[in-house]
């Protein structure tokens, strides 16, 4: 029994290390539903919205074709552009500077193997969207990359590039919720009926 406990601890440490760099939350049953609850669903979405509109998420979901930078979400210097595939143009491709991992140090390029914006034909704009607009957009497979609700939850909860937002490197503010808390709110939003907030919600 003692031996088993020790092994478990090791496994936990092992998985914790993996989680801290990759997924954070273990896979959960993303198809779970709860009784419909428009108030609870909207409330959960507002929490989700705050995360999505934080600099760490919004900077790569800009309204234009220029990514944003910094906690103040200024236009990316160097006239960087989205490009057709979302990974930049010509000699200014994302991965020319952004490595597979954050480059250490203040103001150094953050990194991830998938670093980039959504592609030009699926721009997934966050910047400037009201909560209602963003909720409807996220739920619309024509605008969300063809994702089902389950895939949407999986993306938010497990995608490695999304997960970068919680390991953004030196000097960058974290989103307002932890990733597990964020994932929980996404699940709650959808499980409670995936309601979009009213037009006047902020």
């Amino acid at each position, binding site marked *: 029994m003692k031996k088993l406990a020790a092994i478990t601890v090791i496994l936990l440490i092992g998985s914790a290390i993996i989680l801290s760099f990759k997924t954070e939350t273990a896979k959960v049953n993303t198809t779970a539903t709860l009784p419909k609850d428009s108030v609870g669903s909207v409330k959960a979405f507002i929490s989700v919205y705050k995360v999505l509109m934080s600099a760490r998420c919004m900077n790569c979901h800009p309204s234009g074709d220029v990514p944003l930078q910094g906690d103040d979400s200024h236009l990316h*210097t160097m*006239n960087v552009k989205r490009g057709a595939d979302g990974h930049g143009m010509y000699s200014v491709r994302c991965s020319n500077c952004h490595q597979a991992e954050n480059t250490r140090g203040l*103001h150094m390029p953050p990194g991830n193997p998938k670093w980039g914006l959504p592609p030009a034909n699926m721009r997934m704009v966050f910047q400037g969207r009201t909560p209602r607009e963003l909720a409807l957009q996220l739920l619309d497979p024509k605008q969300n990359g063809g994702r089902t609700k389950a895939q949407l939850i999986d993306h938010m909860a497990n995608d490695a590039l999304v997960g970068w937002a919680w390991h953004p490197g030196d000097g960058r503010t974290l989103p307002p919720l932890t990733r597990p808390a964020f994932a929980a709110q996404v699940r709650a939003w959808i499980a409670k009926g995936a309601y979009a907030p009213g037009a006047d919600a902020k």
Partner: protein
Amino acid sequence: METKEVSRRNFLRVTGIAGTALCLGFYFPANAKQEELVTASGAADSEIEMNAWIRIDANGKVTLTDHRAEMGQGSYQSVPQIIAEELEVDLKDINVVFAQGDQAKYGSQITGGSSTIRGIYKKLLKLSATAREMLITAAATKWNVPGGECYAESGHVIHKPSGKKFNYGELVAVASKLPAPKEVKLKKISEYKLIRKPLQKLDTPLKTNGGAIFGLDKKLPGMLYAVVERNPRQRGKVKSFSDAAALKVPGVKHVFKVQMKVFNTIREGVAVVADSTWAAMQGRKVLHVEWDDSGFEHVNSADLFKRQEELLRKEEGLFAKKQGDPDKAIEQAAKKIDVIYQTPYQAHSAMEPLNCVAYYQSDKVEVWGPIQAPDWVQGGISTEFKIPKEKIIVNMTFLGGGFGRKAFLDYPLEAVTISKEIGKPVQVVWTREDDMTQGPFRAGISYRGQGAIENGEISALKFKMAGQNIDHWNSPKRDHANGSTTEGFLNPYFESIKNISFADVPFEMPLPNMWWRSVYASTNGFAYESFMNEMAVLAGQDQLDFRRRYLKDERCQRLIDKMEEVSGWKSRKKGDGFGVAITECFTSTVGQVVKVSRRADGKVKIDHVWAVMDCGWYVNPDIISAQVEGSIVMALGAATTHEITFKDGLTEQQNFYNYQMPRMSDMPLVEVHVMDNDADAGGVGEPGLPPFSPALTDAIFDLTGKRIRKLPFDMNAV
């Protein structure tokens, strides 16, 4: 075309090769005002050490020693272009080498003040014509024909009646034994074949294939690399440091404290020496240094400018120039203005960060680096290390930009200090952050302009400046005005404006400061020419016509006509913002017209800049265009983004992420016109910079009605 380093041994040999090569240079007698032109045989006879400016060997190969730095301003092209003209050789047959630092041989070598051409072109023309005449005489002697029947062309002397020819190489044996003629005839401007032509630059091939050797590219066998953690408040001391972690970094060899003289203060730091630049940088990252920053003010930028403004309101200052009685005229006038302009501290930020290679040996010291003033470096090492100058060899590499910063001695001296400590050759590399945070900076200066208009005419101008004075590096004594208080302001104004004064209000700060491209004209020009534009508005007159009334000098009048013509000034449309400024800098006058408009997205865009340069006699109009284009880009950064600020004595900007350079997408269309005249040559590398910011802000005023008096300003917010 290749660059090679000339060793000192080669130089000494030069004096002894009469008969096998023709060498001509100048001898700068220590106590004489006028240098003498000498030939190698003449030098050998009189045992003087000459510089071999031009050397033609028995193969006809011409080697030219460029006594000045090449930092982008074009000496590598313009100096040979002058020599090839009068020497009658093809540019492609000239090999250019950089001179080593030696004031006794070359006279002043400081590449500053836009002085390379204007300082020496007459001598170079004469030197080359002298060589040509000696070669012609040699040929005539060999053919036994009158010299008048011979002429030189393309590296050959040709006997006109017979068509016989010698190439220069065949003539050097005879020519080198001839005495130099006392007088030679120089070409008229109309006879030039190379000068005034936009020829392709000789150094471009080296700069398109990675072949040009900059300071950072210099490698020596066994060389180590050093980075230095310097006090972030520039003049503080090292209290203590721990080297344990740094010494554990693979490749790190030494960690020790260094002291460096910076003007009249000492900068302290800790050097990390390793077998690669990267290892040294890694070692530095884990260095723990405690600083003692007591005994001097920790500057805050906001306070600094507030203090300047208070001084300008309170103090009369020290007059640099005064005529008439501006105070009385201003007091009596009904129409007057009284405004403050502010310009920020600036970093030089050459693309090649500071660096230097040094090798301190028991019998000599040799340095290689991007050095603007090799003769000063030689002198500085001699003084600091108490070594005779003849044991100090200073080699200039190509400079990856200089802008004034690389005329300072701290970084070569630092390299020598470190090499002496470790007993090995070392390359000291400044990171971009070191380069940006340590200064010396261009000082931020505030100005107060007061002026009055009577009957549509300027009845008085009164300017005061308050800012750090570069001359106070070594002596902060304030008993006379900054000698550059009127720099940038056009002299003809003094003839047509009766009541006028310029004063300098003493202002001191413990921040290292020094010249920056176009020096005081870069800040004065903004204040003085912005003010002239404000006066034009007050007088209800067109800015160009207004200047015409006061700049009665003929060259200025022609310059204004040209500005008007090329910019379409008279046919400008509603909705366009047009602005102008004219400044003088290093004896050249540059006028600029800037056009701005509002884009569909509401932001103001610079559509076009027309620059008219009057630099008198010139060599290569394309180099002039390039220098003015570049000056405008540098001025654009200084006007719209660049500001070095200090908080608690620390520089707040570290790298291009918070000191944003203009980029391709910011580049306005620049059109440069060069005035044609044969007046003495003026500067080229710097004079294009000062008029840009006042012309730009004037254009914005024209478009928006808003006058910008503080730089930098945000183009996106106007």
